[in-house]
């Protein structure tokens, strides 16, 4: 045994050590327990050193690492700032493109619906001069542009062409001090001359102090200057005060709000209707006027639609009555029997529920006349800017913009309208006797029948 141990001492030690460790492993696996003592020693020996290393690392390598990280942060910050700048530029460019697309679309829509012949142009530069407000556009005489043409946008007038070059034109803006254009207010129809001030605001000059102009009121081109067609919005009044001779009316040009980028040059302008009591861009919905059945308003029919006053209606009634009695109205000495006029009989108090003929209708107000005229087919002027001047002048004013007011039936007259009022008669003439029979009565003195209907003064 001793020989074996001495000869194989190393191997014996190895086997002992291996077997001991195998037993240790077997014990741990078998009992599912750990040799806590060895682990505690090992961990206790290692972890303090590890903590020290971590502390040293944190204050040495960590500091150096933070330094390099900060170097990276600096470069990264610069890179991000550069990228942020690029994105801002791109965002601004895209917004500009979007706004340009919107303006171009609005311009094309306006150009398509406007009766005037226009050419779209883009502002390519400003003119020199400290006080002058002129811009260059990319359309010139080759596009048909001539000096004196109006320059507008869908929002209003912008200026006028002062010089036309082959490939460009010089446009004087409405804010230029030498600019002038005839304008008219929307509500009170006050005329004036728009003058530029070299600022954002413009002055409406030559409006009398006695005339009424309200703040917020819109001015439109009057068409008097023969540059701008009538009916284009100019701007909204911001302040009004009386001056020495004329009112001082300041307004902001509506066509230049938000800058001028794309414009329309009017090669051939067409006058438009000035909207009645409506702004250029109303912010509310306008309801349609009530129908005839809803309001129960009898409308004049036939050729009476062209009559506008009671005197004309009565004259027509007299004429029809005279023709029915074979007596020419206004001819001869024998007056027709006016008591046979159907309207007079119908206009009795007992027959108040009977629909009144149009000839005896109470006199409507002018605005009501417009509503009635508008409600009739064929008599309404086009509300769009496509109305031609001829139509505009021949048709009643456009009232689609006016709020619909339900017509309140006025009290019907309790007595016939055609009542001979002694005070209305000619003081020199003898009052005609009241006819008791159907026999025509010759007027005294053989005078001619009155040349104008008695009701003309009513």
């Amino acid at each position: 045994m001793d020989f074996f141990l001495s000869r194989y001492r190393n191997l014996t030690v190895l086997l002992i050590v291996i077997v001991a460790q195998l037993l240790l492993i077997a014990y741990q696996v078998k009992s599912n327990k750990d040799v806590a003592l060895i682990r505690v020693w090992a961990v206790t020996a290692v972890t303090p050193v590890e903590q020290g290393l971590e502390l040293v690392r944190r204050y040495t390598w960590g500091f150096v690492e933070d330094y390099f990280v900060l170097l990276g942060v600096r470069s990264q910050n610069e890179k991000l700032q550069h990228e942020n700048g690029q994105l801002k530029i791109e965002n601004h460019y895209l917004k500009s493109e979007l706004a340009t697309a919107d303006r171009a679309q609005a311009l094309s829509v306006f150009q398509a619906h406007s009766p005037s012949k226009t050419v779209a142009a883009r502002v390519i530069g400003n003119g020199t001069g400290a006080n002058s407000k002129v811009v260059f556009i990319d359309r010139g005489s080759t596009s048909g542009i001539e000096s004196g043409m109006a320059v507008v946008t869908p929002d209003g007038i912008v200026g006028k062409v002062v010089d036309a070059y082959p490939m460009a034109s010089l446009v004087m803006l409405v804010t230029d001090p030498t600019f002038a254009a005839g304008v008219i207010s929307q509500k009170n129809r006050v005329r004036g001359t728009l003058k530029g001030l070299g600022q954002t605001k413009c002055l409406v000059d030559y409006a009398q102090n006695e005339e009424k102009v309200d703040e917020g009121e819109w001015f439109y081109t009057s068409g008097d200057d023969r540059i701008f067609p009538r009916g284009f919005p100019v701007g909204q009044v911001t302040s009004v005060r009386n001056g020495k001779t004329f009112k001082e009316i300041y307004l902001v040009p509506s066509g230049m709000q938000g800058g001028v980028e794309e414009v329309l040059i009017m090669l051939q302008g067409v006058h438009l209707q000035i909207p009645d009591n409506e702004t250029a861009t109303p912010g509310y919905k306008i309801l349609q006027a009530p129908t005839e059945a809803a309001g129960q308003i009898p409308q004049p029919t036939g050729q009476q639609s062209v009559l506008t006053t009671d005197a004309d209606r009565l004259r027509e009634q007299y004429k029809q009555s005279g023709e029915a009695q074979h007596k020419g109205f206004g001819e001869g000495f024998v007056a027709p029997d006016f008591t046979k006029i159907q309207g007079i009989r119908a206009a009795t108090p007992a027959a108040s529920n009977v629909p009144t003929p149009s000839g005896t209708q109470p006199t409507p107000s002018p605005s009501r006349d417009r509503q009635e005229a508008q409600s009739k087919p064929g008599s309404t002027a086009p509300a769009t800017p496509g109305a031609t001047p001829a139509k505009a002048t021949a048709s009643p004013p456009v009232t689609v913009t006016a709020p619909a007011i339900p017509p309140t039936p006025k009290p019907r007259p309790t007595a016939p309208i055609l009542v001979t009022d002694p005070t209305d008669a000619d003081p020199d003439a003898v009052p005609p006797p009241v006819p008791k029979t159907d026999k025509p009565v010759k007027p005294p003195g053989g005078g001619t029948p009155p040349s104008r209907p008695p009701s003309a003064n009513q």
Partner: protein
Amino acid sequence: MSEYTERLLTGPSRKDKSERLRVIWLIIIPLIAILFQVYVPRFVGFLSYLELPLLITVHFALGRRGPISSVFYGMSIGLVQDSLSHQPIGMFGIVKTLVGYFAASVSQRFDVENPIVTFILSFFFYFFHQFFYWVLARALLGEAMIFDAQQTLLFGLLNAAVALPLFHILDKLKVAA
């Protein structure tokens, strides 16, 4: 047998056999190696392939040329490694015990001063260490460990490459006994 081969097999393993590491270094160096293994891979992941405790065991065994001391030295390092792992204590101990024993036995027959021999021994003992640990894990613990021979060979080459300068540095710490 050529003269070179004969010198490799029978020549002196160290220039000065009386040079040995101090005891304090025998404690600190394994501790540093273990700390390196458990700490550095946190920040430099690819250094986890380095098995510095194994290289320290091999260096000790080759230098001491004593199987018994190398057995205990390898066992101690292995047990500390086991203590810092989640495995049952003794797995690395057995493997490093065997490595210490065989390294000490080999050092008695080869000139381990030769870098080529050192490289080959380091490569061989790394492969042996990994393979035997895999065998023990499967045999004793029943764990389904995967042994990637190709990866093990590659890591063995890298450890052997690291062993050359490491052994040179450790030899500088030796003093005359």
